[in-house]
């Protein structure tokens, strides 16, 4: 995207270039210039602010990227030339972050154990373990407590028995507080903080009783906790973290947990201490997907069903769509417009709603289909593994045939009628003429659409998730997966549904889909020769 060489003939001469530049400067106008300067000013202000916040939070790499990116954009728009870059930059910025980067990031996550219990860093995990396992230190001193708030975050302002005044919150350990207002040994005012009233304490009791304010940076020192918002006591964890040996020791049982290298502390017997933290696990997610029987089995049949579903959906919608296109492509037929209008309604109706409505109609006990059309039969449309597959295909036929009808009608009408006539003059039977002349011509223009329709159905999440939720669930599988799940809905369920999220495994599945879709598109490109048309 460097030096633009425009196609205009007058560009080749110096005079032509000068004339063009003059024309462009003259035509920009002061309003546009003002707009440009304002927009760039805003952009710079935002990126400088963002970079400052990022640096403040010690995100050096991202902060630097923001500064460099902002400067680069400013440079693009302030120089003369680089015209294509000016037009491409806005879209490319979003494309790079939210499409290209996230794909690469999926690749990275697939090599980690990111998920429930492995959400954060090791330091956070150590703190979290200690917080979860705290007991009050017997006979510990009482701290007179005042609960304060600063921008939504609760903090403790306490006076010790020795008369020291300290302030801290869940994030920041206790520190000396020099300029607090104290009455009767209790803090009543803290600069920049708001003191909570009794009513507010009651309202936020839940939050208050789970709050632990560390005594110091050392996680072993313990933390202050309160039950009533009036008095705080020192709590220490049952666990002691030995920084030198990198082990956690349970002081009550004497068990020692060491960093097992897989993102958690484990005993020698293999007992894990949760939460753990995020580490790179190499190919483990992929290895699990291939070797663990409870994952491999579901993965295989989900993949097979994904292909079958996509193929059968395209085939059924195309056949019905083409049939209808042929039927209604007769100028003698009256009121075709009205049929057409009703026929495209399923396509206009939002897809997720259609699936939800069909799910209601196919309900086994109360649904319209069983109760009215089948006179009270209890056909398990959505809960029998095979019938659910059939139902999904049926609903997808309903959703998809109008599209195929529209494109087939368009394609049929663009084929000259003379071809059929000529074939019939040569003695071809009508069906023969259609089969051997019109149909191949139709396929030429429809084939790319069939391929993109296949690709679309390959990831037709909404239909599957809204109609059956992927169910009926396969109880033998080690992951939450059912017999109508396709790959993309399996990724969603592994990552976001239920109490256990496994982002690493879900990303590994996504990578698998990337490879499949990539292969399909390479084949598609070869076939349609779309690339050759680019000039």
């Amino acid at each position: 995207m460097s030096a633009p060489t425009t196609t205009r003939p007058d560009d080749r001469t110096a005079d032509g270039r000068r004339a063009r530049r003059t024309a462009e400067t003259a035509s920009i106008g002061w309003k546009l210039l003002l707009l440009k300067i304002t927009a760039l000013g805003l952009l710079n202000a935002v990126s400088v602010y963002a970079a400052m916040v990022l640096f403040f939070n010690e995100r050096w790499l991202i902060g630097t990227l923001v500064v460099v990116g902002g400067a680069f954009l400013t440079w693009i728009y302030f120089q003369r030339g680089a015209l294509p870059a000016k037009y491409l930059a806005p879209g490319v910025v979003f494309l790079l972050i939210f499409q290209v980067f996230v794909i690469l990031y999926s690749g990275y996550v697939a090599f980690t154990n990111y998920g429930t219990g492995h959400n954060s860093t090791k330091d956070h995990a150590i703190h979290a373990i200690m917080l979860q396992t705290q007991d009050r230190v017997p006979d510990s001193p009482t701290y007179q407590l005042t609960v304060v708030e600063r921008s939504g975050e609760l903090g403790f302002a306490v006076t010790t028995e020795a008369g020291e005044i300290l302030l801290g919150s869940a994030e920041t350990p206790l520190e000396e507080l020099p300029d607090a207002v104290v009455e009767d040994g209790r803090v009543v005012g803290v600069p920049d903080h708001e003191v909570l009233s009794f009513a507010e304490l009651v309202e936020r009791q839940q939050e208050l009783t789970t709050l632990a304010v560390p005594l110091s940076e050392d996680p072993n020192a313990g933390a202050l906790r309160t039950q009533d918002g009036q008095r705080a006591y020192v709590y220490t964890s049952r666990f002691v973290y030995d920084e030198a040996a990198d082990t956690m020791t349970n002081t009550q049982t004497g068990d020692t947990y060491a960093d097992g290298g897989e993102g958690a502390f484990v005993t020698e017997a293999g007992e894990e201490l949760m939460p753990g933290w995020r580490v790179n696990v190499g190919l483990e997610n992929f290895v699990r997907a291939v070797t663990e029987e409870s994952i491999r089995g579901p993965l295989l049949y989900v993949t097979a069903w994904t292909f079958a579903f996509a193929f059968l959906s395209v085939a059924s919608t195309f056949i019905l769509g083409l049939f209808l296109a042929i039927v209604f492509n007769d100028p003698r037929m009256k009121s075709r417009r009205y049929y057409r209008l009703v026929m495209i309604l399923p396509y206009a109706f939002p897809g997720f709603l259609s699936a939800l409505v069909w799910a209601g109609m196919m309900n086994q006990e109360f649904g319209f289909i069983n109760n009215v059309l089948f006179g009270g039969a209890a056909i398990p449309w959505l809960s029998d593994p095979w019938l659910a597959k059939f139902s999904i295909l049926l609903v997808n036929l309903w959703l998809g045939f109008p599209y195929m009808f529209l494109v087939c009608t368009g394609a049929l009408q663009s084929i000259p009628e003379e071809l059929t006539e000529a074939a019939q003059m040569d003695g071809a039977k009508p069906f023969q003429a259609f089969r051997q002349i019109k149909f191949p011509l139709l396929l030429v223009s429809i084939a790319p659409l069939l391929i993109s329709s296949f690709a679309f159905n390959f990831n037709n999440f909404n239909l599957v998730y809204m109609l059956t939720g992927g169910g009926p669930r396969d109880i033998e599988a080690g992951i939450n997966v059912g017999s109508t799940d396709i790959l993309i809905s399996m990724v969603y369920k592994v990552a976001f549904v239920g109490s256990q999220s496994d982002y690493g495994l879900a990303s590994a599945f996504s990578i698998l889909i990337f490879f499949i879709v990539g292969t399909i598109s390479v084949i598609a490109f070869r076939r349609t020769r779309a690339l050759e048309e680019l000039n």
Partner: protein
Amino acid sequence: MAQSLRPPTRRPAAVQPATRRPDAGRPTSRRPVARPRPFRRWFAQTGWRHLVGVAVVVFAAFPLVYVFSASLNPGGTLITANTLFGNLSLQSYVDLFNRPQQPFAAWYVNTLFIGFSASAGSVMLGALAAYAFSRMRFTGRRFGLITILLVQMFPQLLAMVAIFLLMLSIGEIFPAIGLNSQIGLIMVYLGGALGVNTYLMYGFFNTIPVSIDEAARIDGAGHARIFFTIILPLVSPILAVVALLSLVATLSEFVIASVLLRDPDKQTLAVGLYQFISQETSQNWSIFAAGAVLAAIIPVALFLALQRYIVSGLVAGSVK
């Protein structure tokens, strides 16, 4: 159900009359006065087509009629909805807006806000890029076009986990654009804009003669003025198609919206209505149906109004 499945199996029979048209049409057209055709011939020529048409219309319209009837049946559950139009009242539409647990009005506004912003943004980004690809020659142009063609094959929802984690970490530092933020969601949608729309627009931009640009340039217009005041109005049909397609796609988008938007007050119709139905399966079916009818009105109306443009866009290669 049974009748709806019939058409595909009758295909071979259907093909013949359609292709026989030139011969079959001749005898009738020779007659100077259009007399009523004998029933048998009428049926062979067009009558059976009406039969197919009626069957398809029933198949296509039935679920929609059903949901509309259910919405007029106040207090109805799934089972009482089975009596079509047994009860006619708009009470469910009123109840819909009085449920504190399910803020339907907020969902509606959110959906429109997110949909229109994302759609307008996508059209703008796509048009800018298509203009550059169509009118300028630069190093990396072919590479850019191929990249876009490839990116088009990988819908954003494949990277949903990474998008979630990215927004989670953005939200830790900039809550306004991170997790649980509609602005953040719109930004994510804009990330998919270039991949989905540019190619469609690029083709259309190419059909506008370059001589128009040149004439404008001779008259002293700069590139920005040519783009905004000359090209954009000329390509407005494709802008409408892309705007509508991306609006409809955004309105039905569930995966990313459900992953990113956590507060009920911030969610979209797709996320909200799905949770509504999964929480109380068959109970408040009538209220759900009312919600579905209201949610569908805008896309269906836009679709029918802009039908002509959409069909041309579809043939040019985009799938819902």
